[in-house]
């Protein structure tokens, strides 16, 4: 079994990098999108909030695999041609953004309204109030659920193999196609995913401890 794993490793490098790239893009993209939409949902007028709420609720109600296929097969019909890689990344970002919107809203709304008022009273503009007063406090409540969602993204990235992107999962399949020994390869794959997510968990715990220390 160990032999089979060691044999497979060199073939998995590129796929592993693709998995990291997909995960990284999804985490960064959904963070930016979710942050902007989450803030708009929390503070914006109903005309802005309503479509955002509809987007977040709808997208979270769709199975991720359905979403990926919809984007992959649906966009060309709308004359948007994306490579499998970018179609899958776009679907994952949209899906994750739905979660980040909710996490942002929850974190920002947990800040006492007096904080916004105090920030107004010293003459800060809306963006300054967010930057100096609200977000630094909200980040502490934002981090734990967000890190959970990041590990979800890493796991969810395995689905890109279904539209033909050669990520870690697909690379494993390819090796199995040659060796006809599925077990060692799936165990190896599981171990790699666990290692990545364990690293993320440790990082998150460090981050949380740091923010807990600065905000008593």
């Amino acid at each position: 079994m160990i032999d089979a794993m060691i044999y497979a490793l060199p073939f998995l490098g590129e796929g592993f990098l693709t998995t990291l790239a997909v995960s990284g893009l999804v985490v960064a993209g959904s963070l930016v999108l979710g942050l902007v939409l989450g803030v708009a949902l929390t503070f914006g007028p109903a005309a802005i909030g309503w479509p955002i709420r509809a987007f977040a609720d709808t997208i979270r109600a769709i199975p991720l695999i359905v979403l990926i296929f919809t984007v992959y097969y649906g966009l060309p019909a709308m004359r948007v041609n994306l490579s499998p890689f970018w179609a899958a990344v776009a679907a994952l970002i949209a899906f994750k953004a739905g979660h980040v919107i909710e996490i942002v809203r929850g974190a920002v709304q947990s800040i006492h309204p007096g904080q916004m008022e105090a920030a107004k009273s010293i003459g800060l503009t809306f963006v300054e109030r967010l930057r100096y007063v609200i977000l630094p406090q909200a980040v502490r409540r934002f981090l734990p659920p967000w890190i959970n969602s990041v590990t979800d993204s890493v796991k969810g990235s395995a689905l890109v193999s279904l539209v033909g992107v050669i990520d870690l999962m697909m690379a494993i399949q390819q090796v199995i196609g040659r060796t006809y020994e599925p077990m060692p390869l799936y165990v190896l794959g599981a171990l790699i995913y666990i290692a990545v997510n364990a690293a993320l968990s440790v990082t998150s715990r460090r981050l949380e401890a740091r923010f807990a220390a600065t905000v008593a």
Partner: protein
Amino acid sequence: MSIVLSVRGLKKRFGSTTVLDGIDLDVARGEVLVVIGASGSGKTTLLRCVNALVPYEEGSVTLEGTEVYYTAPNSGVRRGDRQLARIRGDIGMVFQLFNLFPHLSALQNVALGLKVTRGLPKAEAQARAEHWLTRVGLSDRMHHLPAALSGGQQQRVGIARAVAMDPKLLLLDEITSALDPELVGEVLDVVRGLAKEGMTMLMVTHEMQFARDAGHRVVFMDAGRIAEAGAPRDVLGNPQSERLRKFLRRIELRTE
């Protein structure tokens, strides 16, 4: 005497409830105007309308002739974010529950507005914040987070944060109501000092003794209107309406 704050025909409704029902009020430069009244009489809402924490739809609030929430009196056109922020920067506010920024030290709490709103260089903002924290007796607490300070100390930081901006008008909203009785004195002493130096103040309080000896004028609010106004000696010593007499009796009973 020049007028700093002028309120005319101010009305405010929350849904079907009328909280302010036509307020007319002037505050002159250097004046300490004390607002008293039962809870629900609209005094806190009045204060919050002045710096537009609560938007008002009817009437006018002007700071040195500039309408606060709208581009011109009764224009109905709201100011942009940046314009309103700049005007708010000239109106200091101290809150009942302090509302200090919990992630910032006392010094950073005071320096934030100086840096961001006033655009002072970091060193200058810091020096000015240190100056004001020393003034309120907290020179040895500058680097503490709010959670490490007593209520009285927190409120003194709150005052320093507001006055460091060198505001044209200072709003004080029941600033001692959330404090333990033995901490009230240290906070009111700071306010007394500011009054002596000519800070213009609009203050909601239940501290009648303070209203009597530090206030220049007292306004009694009842059901969203100004029911009585005048020198503290007259309003508090010789109340004209039954409502005010009742209110003062209740307050006296509580403080004795």
